[in-house]
């Protein structure tokens, strides 16, 4: 068990200068699936009533010495009334075709309050599939933000179980694809008890031959009255060959609920573009402003201004195509 107040010294410091570590964060490096490469998977418990004083950054690393098939497992338990902020980053540091299979378990006991940010930034030859299993007890509040910035194939299978009344879960996600990347999200959010709230917002910007799948279902069991559950998935296509497949679903067995779902696949708005150009903003910049505006709705869910600004600048670099300039680099400017 890792003590949350322990600062793990970065083992890869000499080759890796992560720019994300911000003031007041602690870091744990997970190398080849275990903490510091020492064999034990990451398992973290925040005790009842404990408030993590600093944001914890978990940095997952794949490097030239790593096996090509990798299993990662992380477990996060938040005790009653505890609170914390976690940033989990996933990186590839060399160009091997890593295949990562990962399981992440997150449980929140009564009245725990947690912010969990996942940043995925791997190279075009990497495949990464993660099962997120999330459980919320009564009165627990979870804000989870997924940022899939870059990667050959990224699959996120997210299962959330609302197990205690008055729990609240906000899932937000942003995925960006170009070249022939695939981002595949599936979400199954189950309201097992009455009076819970959930909101999902997933947005994607797809360029070149990039593809995205979104398959999301909200399930409300017969007794889960007074449920509020919302789901939205919006996709912006920048090229004729980009594709988005979206499948928003609702399965409601209770009769006193507020639920909605919606999905769109569209292009940049021509009227906005013309308006900006008449003010002297060149077409390329104007399109970038539109894309940044589109992504901001997800980025603004990150509560730390410093981390949000950092992520926003990564997204901007990514949308400007700066990552694609480094075909032979695996670090994607991170």
């Amino acid at each position, binding site marked *: 068990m890792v003590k949350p107040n322990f600062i793990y010294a970065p083992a890869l410091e000499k080759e890796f200068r992560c720019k994300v570590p911000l003031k007041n964060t602690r870091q744990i490096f997970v190398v080849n699936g275990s903490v510091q490469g020492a064999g034990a998977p990451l398992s973290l418990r925040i005790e009842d009533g404990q408030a993590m004083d600093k944001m914890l950054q978990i940095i997952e690393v794949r490097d030239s010495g790593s096996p090509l098939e990798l299993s990662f497992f992380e477990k996060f338990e938040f005790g009653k009334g505890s609170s914390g902020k976690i940033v989990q980053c996933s990186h590839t540091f060399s160009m091997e075709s890593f295949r990562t299979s990962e399981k992440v378990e997150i449980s929140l006991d009564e009245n725990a309050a947690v912010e969990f940010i996942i940043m995925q930034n791997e190279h075009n030859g990497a495949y990464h599939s993660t099962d997120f299993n999330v459980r919320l007890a009564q009165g627990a509040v979870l804000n989870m933000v997924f940022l899939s910035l870059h990667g050959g194939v990224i699959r996120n299978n997210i299962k959330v179980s609302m197990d205690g009344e008055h729990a609240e879960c906000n899932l937000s996600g942003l995925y960006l694809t170009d070249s022939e990347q695939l981002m595949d999200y599936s979400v199954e959010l189950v309201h097992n008890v009455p009076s819970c709230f959930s909101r999902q917002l997933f947005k994607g910007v797809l360029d070149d031959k990039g593809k995205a799948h979104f398959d999301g279902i909200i399930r409300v069991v017969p007794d889960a009255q007074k449920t509020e559950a919302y789901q939205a998935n919006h996709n912006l296509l920048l090229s004729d060959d980009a594709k988005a497949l979206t499948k928003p679903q609702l399965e409601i067995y209770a009769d006193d609920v507020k639920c909605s779902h919606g999905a769109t696949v569209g292009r940049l708005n021509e*009227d*906005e573009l*013309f*308006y*900006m*150009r*008449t*003010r*002297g*903003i*060149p*077409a390329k*910049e104007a399109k970038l*402003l*539109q894309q*940044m*505006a*589109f992504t*901001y*709705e997800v980025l603004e869910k990150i509560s730390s201004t410093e981390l949000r600004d950092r992520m926003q600048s990564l997204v901007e670099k990514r949308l400007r195509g700066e990552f694609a300039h480094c075909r032979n680099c695996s670090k994607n400017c991170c």
Partner: protein
Amino acid sequence: MEPMLKIENLHASVGDKEILKGINLEINKGEVHAIMGPNGSGKSTLSAVLAGRETFTVTEGSVTFKGMDLLKLSPEERSWAGLFLGFQYPIEIPGVSNVNFIKASVNEHRKQKGLPPLSPAEFLKLMREKMSYVEMDSSFSSRGVNVGFSGGEKKRNEIFQMAMLEPDLAILDETDSGLDVDALRIVATGVNRMKRPDNAAIVITHYQRLLDYIVPDVIHVLYKGRIIKTAGKELALQIESKGYDWIING
């Protein structure tokens, strides 16, 4: 002296439909021209074509602006060259704040002139000054461009942008539509304040009331894609009392 803007025999279409059927117009520095005309006569098309909207195809004719072939320029190049279009229906851009939008715009103009971007303090000062032209509250800066603005606020935002960019030629497309008397006065005052001997404006309007505030040197009546009458400012009053029929049928 060469006119600032010279439009010769301008024809423009959308698809197979010809909307402008041979416009001729010359505007000199220091002049304000009003273009009036019934609905569907091509007033908004003319302004969109001048600003470079790609939905319209110019099939014949030429437009010279400050000696340049305007029709060869992209919308942003026209803006850099000193042309400004005030939209009849200003576009909402959710997620792009008004301040970032106008900052991008002003700094792009400066870049084209070889000037460095304004410092945050300089920019703020300029912005405050120009917002006061149209009695705009500073709370507008952080809001999305035109998002949730009332009709009057949107038009004031157009005039504010114009004040920031200081164009040589401003085309105001029905800036008075949807304005109450107070908003109309504010907008018109803002426009008049920017009038200089070396710039010019085209004011497109349905109604004479805007021309009470922004007094034109010349009034043109556009009908079915052609200018059918050009006269002094007194024409607006005649149109107000007699309508367009006497001109169209005359």
